[in-house]
Every structure is written in structure tokens, then in C-alpha cells.
């Protein structure tokens, strides 16, 4: 995997190699990709404030590396790689200095499917898919953004961005076995959080407080 377009060119050389037309082209491409750059940044960082700085940093790095981009048709994938690398060099480095909860105490065996699946309904319905259909986007966002950093980053890279385990391992400088185990634990935690959100919203077939059920946002 191409880990980084760095080392970047000194600013004065960038100045000599790029034209006003390049700048207009770059501005248009960034503008078109901004919702995706921002979405990916939020998911990686877990909150909006750091995500905005991450996007700005990635855009600045992309500009100074633009003379190295031979195929501008590849801009999209290229700029997302820059975003991921900026995440590793900026946000992730800050996390590594902070204390993390012990990794080895986290279970990886919670399964939303096991909680929801009813074999007896096999031919009449699928409560687990109904549950997913009724979850709101914000339930998914809350669950993924609230994951501990070490789990969120691998879940985001694999499930949101669709990266291969090997690519994630190289990006984060982790053994591939660690990527697999963090992914399993992260997904388990994510599913446990979704289960709780679903219970709060009355989406499970467990008995719920009738008054709360009546005012559930899903029943309005």
C-alpha cells in the first residue's frame, strides 16, 4: 500500500510547479469531496471538532503534494489516503499519549443476531433485519463514535471505508492479528451499543414501559 505521498515538496517548489488553473481544479475537487472527507474524519476521530482540523490538515497536505500526483483521475483515492495518514500522524499520535482502557478485558462475543433471531419465525419474518431497518442513522453514529479509540479506528477503516485488513495493519503499524482481534472486539461493542439503543427505543420484543413505548420516537 502506498502509505503516504510524503515527503512533501517544500512550499516554494510547490509554488513553482502549480498554476492558478491547478488551484481552481483543486478547489473544485475538494469541494465535491468535502462531505466524504468530513464524514470519514468524524468517524475516525469520533467527534466533530478534531474532524474539522483533520480535514483542513489533509487538504493542506494534499495541495503541497499535488505536484507528485501523476494521474489526477486518481485524486479521490489519493486524497483519502492523505486523510488517513494525517489521522495517524496527528489524531492517533495524540491518543497514544493518553491512557487507554485495558484491551484484554473486552469481550468479543456479543452478537446482536443472537439477541434478535427467532428461528421459529423463519418463514414469516426476520426480527433481526426489522430491527436494523428501524434503527436510525444517528443510532449507528452514536454507537460507532462512542467506541474506544483503538476499536473505533479499525471498525471505521474496515466497515466504513472498506479497507482490507492488510491495508489497515500497514496504516496503523499493527500486526494483522491485532487488527483482527480489535475488529472483533470493536464490532462486539458496537453491536452491544446498538442493542441498548434499540432497547431504549422499544425496538426489541422485550416488555417495555407502556408510557415510554407510546412516546417512542419510532412510533410517532
Amino acid at each position, binding site marked *: 500500500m502506498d502509505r503516504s505521498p510524503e515527503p512533501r515538496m517544500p*512550499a516554494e517548489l510547490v509554488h513553482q510547479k502549480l498554476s492558478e488553473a491547478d488551484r481552481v481544479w483543486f478547489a473544485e475537487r475538494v*469541494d465535491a469531496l*468535502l462531505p466524504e472527507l*468530513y464524514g470519514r474524519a468524524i468517524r475516525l476521530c469520533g467527534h466533530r471538532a478534531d474532524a474539522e482540523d483533520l480535514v*483542513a490538515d489533509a487538504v493542506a497536505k494534499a*495541495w503541497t503534494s499535488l505536484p507528485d500526483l501523476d494521474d489526477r483521475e486518481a485524486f479521490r483515492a489519493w486524497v483519502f489516503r492523505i486523510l488517513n495518514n494525517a489521522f495517524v500522524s496527528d489524531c492517533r499520535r495524540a491518543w497514544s499519549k493518553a491512557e487507554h482502557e485495558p484491551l484484554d478485558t473486552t469481550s468479543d462475543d456479543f452478537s446482536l443476531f443472537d439477541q434478535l433471531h427467532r428461528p421459529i419465525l*423463519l418463514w414469516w419474518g426476520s426480527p433481526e433485519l426489522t430491527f436494523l431497518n428501524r434503527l436510525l442513522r444517528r443510532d449507528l453514529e452514536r454507537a460507532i463514535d462512542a467506541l474506544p479509540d483503538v476499536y473505533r479506528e479499525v471498525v471505521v477503516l474496515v*466497515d466504513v471505508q472498506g479497507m482490507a485488513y492488510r491495508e489497515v495493519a500497514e496504516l496503523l503499524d499493527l500486526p494483522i492479528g491485532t487488527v483482527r482481534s480489535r475488529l472483533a472486539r470493536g464490532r462486539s461493542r458496537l453491536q452491544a451499543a446498538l442493542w441498548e439503543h434499540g432497547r431504549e427505543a422499544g425496538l426489541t420484543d422485550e416488555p417495555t414501559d407502556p408510557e415510554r413505548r407510546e412516546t417512542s420516537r419510532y412510533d410517532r
Partner: protein
Amino acid sequence: MTDNEIRGCEDALRLLAAHIDRELDDTSRIQVERHLETCRSCYSRAEFEKRLKTSLAELDREPVRPELADRLRMMIREFAVAGTESP
């Protein structure tokens, strides 16, 4: 028997996440697919996990605050290019 030989649901479920992530080699992938063709419970689980993964993939974009869009436009406007003064 290889590590990835599938003899029942337990073996299939052990490989299911990697299967959905397209991380299995061809031999294991074919074994998992054959199991899913004949086991309704594992098939249902696979469909559920795939649907959840698809939902997560849709979280890759967010509406952008106008302030951020303006900040970036301003930043790009100030990038120096050939034939102009550096900011």
C-alpha cells in the same frame, strides 16, 4: 484437516466475518459459501451481518458546516501558485 476446513456451523461462524470482509482465500470462501447454501441459520446471520456492514458504510459522509467549507475555500485561495505573490 486444515485450520479453515468447515465441518459445521461453528467452523462457518468462525470464518463468517472474514468471509463478509472478503478476506478469505478461495478454498475457504467456497467452503463457507457451500455451508451458507445449506444452513438457513448461518445464511440468516450472514445476511444480517452484511446488512449491518452496509449500513455502517453509509456513515462515510456528513453534511458540512458552512463555516468549515468557508475555512477551506479561504485556505485554498491563499495557496501560492506560480506567477502570483505568495501570501
